[in-house]
């Protein structure tokens, strides 16, 4: 009797607790990590960009087909010599503190990106010499040299405008109370817990903003993120596990939105910095053999349930700049063995294979290991914590490094810093005069046809010498409740709130 009474009291207590929880009417988004500082000049994480999309508008944006479309700008025009870019601003735009977004304010933001100590935008805007104010709604970007990826850079954090008044008052603490010109304004942030935003009543596009509040909740564990979505604690989650796709599809209350990522997943092969001077670094034939030993479609099937996109270049086969003349080569173990023999290597060839920790990385590494073994490679997987792996990659303490890149809209953003001689992330320490020229030329020319022809030379050099063995492009997996309507997945993985409704 007593036990029964206790049970009833406990159940009543649980129920009463539960009723207190379910009164939310906001869009709640589950993130896979806690972002770094919310200052577009100082920020550097991918997950941070998802949050910025809700509150910090940019001069330009992209559409689903990667076309550049205006956002805070109305139009842009590049001079004949490519050294001046004139940008017309949208009239009547206000920052969330009521300050006007005019040419002076736009110049302030761009100058801040370039001059602020510790700015991560500085390299992105390195070509910018100075900004001139032409009239209250027009700015002119004067460049040191023609730089065709400029407008693409302005579709991301480098193009985000911050309120000059707030930025001057807060200095490097601006990111703790950011003020931008986006559809939602910052309310509060509790580290590792939540970031709350509410609708900005004076936003230039307010008629297309239908949800009152947006809350971002970092939930690291993917299973728990999905559990929250299923239990109604969240409305949208990013980075769903490929293994959970079936589960989401089977649930009538959930919807899956996907797109192929802008970035790539690949193996960086140490060429110029290999202390052991192993055959892999010394001979392109050995690198070709490793490439031929890998069946990219098998990786796709085994690890990703067929949901990724096998590739062999720094952009996916769907990208307008993909070089169709160089398709993914099928696996050819016999040829791989023959190449190893030609290079004078007696199998098995032991290779140090550094893999940053993570279930997905490790699974891919194991598949690569077993396939490469058949061709005569003994890939010794060394799972390394990410921060340590970066340090070792810089020091050249590896032979093969499994590395991914989240990707940029312009092909330059996926290639230059990794492939140019002595570029900051050229971990392979690869140096090729023809590739360098193509990379430089690609920055000078704006015409897509001409640029594509230039990048063809780069593709040839890369596929001949293999400093990076591109493997696949992940499918961005976003799941949301059917209550959320109007959601479209963009290839950059970001969540755009404009036009969304929540029933």
């Amino acid at each position, binding site marked *: 009797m007593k036990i029964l009474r206790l049970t009833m009291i406990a159940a009543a207590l649980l129920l009463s607790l539960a009723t207190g929880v379910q009164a939310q009417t906001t869009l709640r988004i589950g993130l896979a990590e806690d972002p770094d500082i919310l200052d577009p000049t100082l920020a*550097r994480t991918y997950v941070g960009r998802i949050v910025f999309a809700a509150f910090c508008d940019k001069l330009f944006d992209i559409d689903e087909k990667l076309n550049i479309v205006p956002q805070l700008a109305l139009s842009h025009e590049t001079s004949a010599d490519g050294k001046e870019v004139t940008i017309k601003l949208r009239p009547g735009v206000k920052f969330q503190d009521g300050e006007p977004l005019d040419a002076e304010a736009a110049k302030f933001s761009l100058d801040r990106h370039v001059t602020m100590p510790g700015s991560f935008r500085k390299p992105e805007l390195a070509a910018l010499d100075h900004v001139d104010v032409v009239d209250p709604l027009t700015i002119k970007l004067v460049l040191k040299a023609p730089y065709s990826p400029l407008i693409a850079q302005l579709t991301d954090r480098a193009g985000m405008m911050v309120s000059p008044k707030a930025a001057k008052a807060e200095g490097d603490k601006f990111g703790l109370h950011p003020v931008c010109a986006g559809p939602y304004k910052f309310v509060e942030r509790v580290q590792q817990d939540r970031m709350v935003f509410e609708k900005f009543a004076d936003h230039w596009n307010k008629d297309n903003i239908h949800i009152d509040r947006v809350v971002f909740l970092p939930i690291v564990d993917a299973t728990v993120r999905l*559990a929250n979505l299923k239990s109604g604690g969240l409305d949208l989650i990013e980075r769903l596990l490929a293994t959970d796709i079936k589960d989401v599809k089977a649930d009538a209350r959930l919807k899956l939105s996907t797109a192929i990522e802008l970035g790539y997943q690949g193996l960086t092969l140490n060429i110029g910095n290999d202390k052991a001077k192993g055959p892999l670094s010394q001979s392109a034939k050995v690198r070709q053999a490793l490439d031929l030993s890998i069946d990219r479609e098998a990786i796709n099937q085994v690890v990703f349930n067929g949901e990724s996109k096998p590739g062999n270049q720094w952009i996916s086969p769907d990208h307008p700049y993909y070089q169709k003349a160089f398709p993914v080569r099928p696996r050819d173990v016999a040829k791989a063995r023959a190449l190893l023999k030609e290079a004078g290597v007696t199998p098995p060839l032991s290779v140090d294979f550094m893999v940053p920790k993570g279930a997905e990385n490790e699974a891919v590494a194991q598949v690569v290991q077993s396939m490469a073994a058949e061709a005569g490679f003994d890939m010794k997987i060394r799972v390394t914590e990410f921060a340590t792996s970066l340090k070792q990659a810089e020091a050249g303490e590896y032979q093969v490094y499994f590395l991914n890149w989240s990707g940029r809209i312009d092909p330059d953003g996926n290639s230059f810093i990794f492939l140019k001689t002595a570029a900051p992330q050229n971990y392979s320490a690869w140096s090729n005069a023809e590739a360098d020229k193509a990379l430089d030329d690609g920055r000078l020319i704006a015409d897509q046809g001409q640029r594509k022809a230039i990048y063809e030379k780069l593709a040839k050099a890369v596929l001949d010498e293999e400093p990076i063995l591109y493997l696949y492009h992940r499918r961005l997996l976003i799941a949301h409740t059917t209550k959320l309507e109007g959601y479209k997945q963009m290839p950059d993985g970001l969540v755009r709130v404009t036009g969304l409704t929540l029933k």
Partner: protein
Amino acid sequence: MDPGSAAHLYTLRRARETKPMLSFLARRVLQLVPTLFFVSILIFSLQHLLPGDPALVMAGEEHDPAVIAQIRQQYRLDRPIPIQYFYWVKGVLSGDFGESLRIKVPVRELIAQKLPVTMQLASMAIVIAFLIGIPAGIVSAVKKGTAWDYGANLFALWGISTPNFWLGIMLIFLFSIELGWLPASGYVPLSENWRASLAATIMPAFVLGNAIAAILMRHTRSAMLQVLESDYVRTARAKGLSERSVILKHALRNALTPIITLGALELGTLLSGAVLTEQIFSIPGFGKLIVDAVFNRDYAVVQGVVLVTATIYITLNLIADIAYILVNPRLRA
């Protein structure tokens, strides 16, 4: 007061008793200083032994050498380690724990934000542990060799051997997805909405409390068995006291002393953050803070949190010792 009066003698006796107690306390508090100093050196040097460069990690995907050099200079990462240590200790002594490299928030503020969360979770967990562990221990000692005893032992074995992350996920499936009674994860401060706060923390507190309950149950059982066989319990029974009063009033009180000490130590461990459980339930406490900080090489945060945790642990130890002395007068001399 009249010398020689009972009141005077009493005061003298009290003074004699308090004096060693006070000097004991003073000694222990003084010991804190070198201990914490040693801890601070240990934290600092161990952390710098970690491979990986905070400036490089901070730079994220963008590895521009000029930017990285600038970060190193800004946070004195380019200075020799003893000098970095000197600056840190100088700050700590004036109450400034430094600033997070990653999010530019003062570490003191982060600690003030997370400590109440972890304290709430730890207190709830310890209450749950006591509520389950002690009654189960008593029942299994009193009903030794019966189905009750086996049942309680089985429960203890389950509690000790169930991994937290598994139990956590199972609870989420049951109470959040299937039944829809509780939120799957997240945290609401007590001050904001106490019901939502309890709803958000009850599952993680149970997961943490469950494991400790098992340990407490085992200890209660053995302590009770020992006490139940002692002479004074036999005397109490011979005097005709009811079994209930023998067990709860006479036996349990003596058996509880070591269990309370154990509870205090477990509380100390809980306060240093329950990494896995906080991760699963997305509770923004110390555990989550320190894990993120270690992976991001956010030195100032790691140093600050570990120092505070060490201080809490040492203080709880001290309190447990004092409690022990208060309960057991023989230790006072």
